[in-house]
């Protein structure tokens, strides 16, 4: 019975793989249906998708933050002196 369920509605291993595929590119129509049916029956994979999406958002947010705190005047100075030497 479990095997039939897995063929129709995916195992959690396969479902989490499709969640990652969804976040990276698009799913096929069949995959979309399979995943949404699986999630309707599985709290763990529903949580996984929410959390995986949150991690994506957090990563992008962190990158933006890192970008904002930049002081480049000293870098310009040292770059210029390095070029001066190499000419």
């Amino acid at each position, binding site marked *: 019975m479990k095997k039939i369920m897995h063929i129709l509605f995916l195992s959690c291993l396969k479902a989490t793989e499709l969640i*990652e595929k969804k976040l990276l590119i698009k799913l096929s129509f069949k995959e979309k249906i399979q995943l949404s049916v699986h999630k309707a029956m599985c*709290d763990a994979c529903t949580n996984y998708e929410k959390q995986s999406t949150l991690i994506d958002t957090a990563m992008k947010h962190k990158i933006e933050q890192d970008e904002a705190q930049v002081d480049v005047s000293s870098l310009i100075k040292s*770059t210029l002196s390095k070029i001066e030497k*190499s000419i």
Partner: protein
Amino acid sequence: MTQKKYNLTEWVNTYTADMFRWALYKVSDEELAKDLVQDTFVAATEKVKDFKGDSSPKTWLFSILNHKIIDVYRKNAKKPIAVEPKTFSDFFDENGDWFVNKRPQSWDVSDGHLLDNVEFNAVLKACLEALPEKWGACVKFKYYFNKNADEICQELEIAPTNLWQIMHRAKLNLRDCINKNWFQN
């Protein structure tokens, strides 16, 4: 000669900020990003006589910088895996179901300022760095370069099926690490 030198000085003043921000965004290491920008300008100094002005100086400089950034990723991707990371069989049983103690429980994110929380971001960074280099390179390619799957495979010289497995395992480990070090703490 004087003309060329003048141009480069102007370029350094004009483009360093953008290039540094870009490099930092890609390698998320301040010192490495600075080195990459400097190396780019040194290379540009040597190659500037070949620069015909077909593209804007900015485009030309960024293409040199991007090559250097990709070299860093490629080098990291080829280093042997240092730590023993968790594989699928650490999360799922032979039927592909979650082990009971590994089933994702809901996270309490009612705080609302989680993404701006300095400590949370430190955990995030540490967990990303704890990934094996090859997995980390794939994840960074995705977030920093905004590359699609085909491009990531090409840059890192891996097969598409490999990319799925790497991304999937990397994310499982990343989630597990954040869960352990933040949400269960």
